[in-house]
Every structure is written in structure tokens, then in C-alpha cells.
């Protein structure tokens, strides 16, 4: 299975990459880890005339905190995020990155690539949605920041303009009293696209019992990764525990809009959304309580 012909470019920095992208006017694709793009090219689904390789750009691989915000470079590999980034990565994101593909895929696949590929069940997209992340999109004209619910427009479709590069993911730094969790159901235990995946994030009030705020994100439940408004509403102000989590699971299943396909039925997916929602909230609560 051979790759179609293209001209390869290795920019020395982000500014040069942006200038190239602009100059090629829609003829170029950005290459990050290549675990999606090169596969699509081999399958004949994409045949860009120009490839601009971002993989070597150190400025896209930095992670760090700025005030209360955590900034993750789009070039970070799934393997690095799965390793926790020295304790900086929120639990659900590290779990999602660790559930992606295989060890070989995680050593290549990038954070930014997972986001711009925008599959409805992508292992890092669903946790980032629950964590309230936004993305920085940079073009020669400057930078804009987009919240993830506005970034995902459809399967493989995002708000990214052809002249833009997704450079960073921004999210709130995890604080005491907060926790998150990720759950993935597949037909196999590795190298699998989820049948359903769910991520949950919650913050407790100072009493350690009442839920101040929560978000539940669902994958493979709609054309894009989606937040469940019903689950968030059921959890806010409730006492953390089985009753609240059951109500949230019921609401999440009601919000889900899954389809029947060769991988599973909509009815089964809806049931599994509920089961995984409960499980992820349990993980998030355990972390929020520090155990």
C-alpha cells in the first residue's frame, strides 16, 4: 500500500509553517503524527500535493501553566500525555491518551491531530470536552481561541480555517476538590475505536459532599463529541453519590443521539452511555476526595 506523490516540507518554526500553509493556498496538509493522515492517504481518501511536517517543531511540544491555566502544546504525543506530563495532565485526559491506539500509535499520535481529525469518539477529544478545554488557532493574521463545543462541527469537521494551525490546548489547572475520569467501551481491549466513550469532570463545594459544577462528555453518541446538558443539570447542587450519579446517567442516555451501525445498536450504546457515565463520575469523585 503506497503513499501517493507529494512534496515534503520541513519548516524550521511555526512562523515558517504558517507562511508555507498560506502560500500553498489549500494545496497543503499539515503532518503531525501521521497516524490518521498517512493512513487516509494510503487509502486514497486524501492526496495533498504538499505536506508540511510539524512533527519536529519543539515550540508545539511544550506544556506548562500560566496562572490558573494549563497549556498543552498540540504536538505533544499521546504517550507523553498518558504518562501524565509530570503530574500536570488531568486524570481523564491521561486515561484517554493511554486508551488511544497501541503503544506504537501513542508514540506518534499528537494531541492536536486527535482534535483536528475530530472523530466522534476520539480518545482525547471526549476528556478535553469534559474538562472544559479550548483550543488556540493561529494564522498569519493572529490567534483566536475557540471553546471545544464550538470547535467540533461534524465527523472530521472543525472550525479550523485552512490557513490556521492548532497550536495549543488550554484548560483550567486541576485544583483540590476536583476530579475527572474516563471510560471506554470497545469490542477489544487495545487498538480499538470506542463503541461508546464517556468522560466526566466534577468540582465539589468546600463541604466535600455537594457538587458545585460538573460536566459529562459523550463519544460515539452523536456526529461530534458532545456534552450532556442534562447530566450537568442533574449534578449541579446535588449531593455526590450513587443517587445523583444514577440521575446523571439517565439524563446522559437521554441526551445521547447514537446511531445503529455495524459496531453496535443505538439502544445498546444508550445503555452503555449510562453505565459509563456512572463509572466515570465515580472515578471523578474518588479523585476529588483525594483517594
Amino acid at each position: 500500500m503506497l503513499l501517493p506523490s507529494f512534496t515534503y516540507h520541513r519548516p524550521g518554526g511555526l512562523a515558517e509553517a504558517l507562511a508555507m500553509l498560506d502560500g500553498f493556498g489549500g494545496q497543503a496538509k499539515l503532518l503531525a503524527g501521521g497516524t490518521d493522515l498517512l493512513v487516509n492517504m494510503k487509502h486514497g481518501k486524501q492526496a495533498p500535493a504538499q505536506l508540511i511536517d510539524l512533527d519536529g517543531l519543539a515550540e508545539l511540544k511544550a506544556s506548562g501553566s500560566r496562572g490558573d491555566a494549563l497549556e498543552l502544546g498540540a504536538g505533544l504525543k499521546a504517550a507523553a500525555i498518558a504518562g501524565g506530563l509530570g503530574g500536570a495532565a488531568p486524570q481523564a485526559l491521561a486515561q484517554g491518551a493511554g486508551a488511544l491506539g497501541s503503544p506504537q500509535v501513542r508514540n506518534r499520535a499528537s494531541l492536536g491531530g486527535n482534535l483536528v481529525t475530530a472523530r466522534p469518539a476520539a480518545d482525547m477529544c471526549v476528556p478535553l470536552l469534559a474538562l472544559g478545554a479550548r483550543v488556540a488557532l493561529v494564522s498569519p493574521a493572529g490567534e483566536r481561541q475557540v471553546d471545544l463545543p464550538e470547535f467540533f462541527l461534524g465527523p472530521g469537521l472543525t472550525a479550523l480555517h485552512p490557513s490556521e494551525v492548532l497550536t495549543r490546548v488550554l484548560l483550567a489547572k486541576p485544583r483540590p476538590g476536583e476530579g475527572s475520569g474516563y471510560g471506554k467501551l470497545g469490542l477489544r481491549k487495545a487498538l480499538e475505536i470506542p463503541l461508546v466513550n464517556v468522560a466526566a469532570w466534577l468540582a465539589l463545594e468546600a463541604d466535600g459532599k455537594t457538587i458545585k459544577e460538573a460536566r459529562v462528555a459523550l463519544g460515539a453518541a452523536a456526529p461530534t463529541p458532545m456534552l450532556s446538558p442534562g447530566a450537568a443539570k442533574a449534578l449541579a447542587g446535588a449531593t455526590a453519590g450513587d443517587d445523583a450519579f444514577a440521575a446523571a446517567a439517565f439524563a446522559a442516555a437521554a441526551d445521547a443521539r447514537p446511531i445503529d451501525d455495524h459496531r453496535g445498536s443505538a439502544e445498546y450504546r444508550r445503555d452503555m452511555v449510562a453505565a459509563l457515565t456512572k463509572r466515570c463520575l465515580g472515578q471523578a469523585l474518588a479523585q476529588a476526595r483525594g483517594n
Partner: protein
Amino acid sequence: MSAHILKLKVNGREYQALVSANHTLAQVLRENLGLTGTKQGCQVGDCGSCTVLLDGEPVNSCLVLGVQAESREVLTIEGLAEGNKLHPLQDSFVRAGAIQCGFCSPGMILSAKALLERKPSPGLDDIRQGLAGNLCRCTGYQKIVEAVMQASHRMSGEASS
């Protein structure tokens, strides 16, 4: 279409090759450098038979462009034995009956090598997870897991003696 002069280190030796941009690292290793120990199976990153270590980390060489290996270090299965002495992992694979048709073995052994470098005394689950990106259609995996376990015992024994 572009062609590039690629310089890289494979199995400790410097190579230089003229490669087309659309040739993968797996193709460059096999066709330009004649290192046919790296196998090409699915060619889309699912089977792991083309696994090599790129700067010490296992990757599917079918999903890395040859030009992306510029100035980097690659370890292939040819780089493991020292003369006629097999690497403990290779020897354990032979002894444990972990090699049947042999097609997955180079990738399997390189994934196992990366695992043992990160985790010299892995548990069974660690081994299964470390090899999750390598498919074998012959053995049913059990003998492969046993071979990695045996190699880890032998290598940690050698390290302490």
C-alpha cells in the same frame, strides 16, 4: 514529488540514502538499506509487524516517512544480535516456542525490548499491554508472553551478576 538526501543512524551505523518523500521508513529500511528483517503487514498501523525503535521508542515504520527519520536513530531486528550471539529476547522467543511463522517476531521482539527497557521486571499485564500493538496469527500469544517473561528474568539476572 520531492526527493531528499536522508542521513540517519540504523543499528549504530550511519547511512545516507536518496529517498522519495512518499517512501515510508519501512520502505527505506527494506529497499534502500536492504534491511528486510522489518516486515510490512497491514501497512496502516494496525498489525505492528513493521515496528522499529525510533530513538528508543517503538513506532510503526509504515506510518513514519523516511524523511522524518532524518538525523535520528533507528533500531531494527538486525541490530539486536551481537555477532552469532542472539539477544536474550531472541533466544527466549526461540526456546519458548514463541516463533511459528516468524512474520510478527521482529516487531514483537522490538516492542518487548522497549518494554523491558522501561520496565525490566514486568508483570503479565504489563507484557500484554506492551505488546498490544503487535498482532500474531499463529501462537495465540501465550508463548510470546512467556518468552518475554523468561527474557526479563535472564536479563535482570545478567544485570545483577
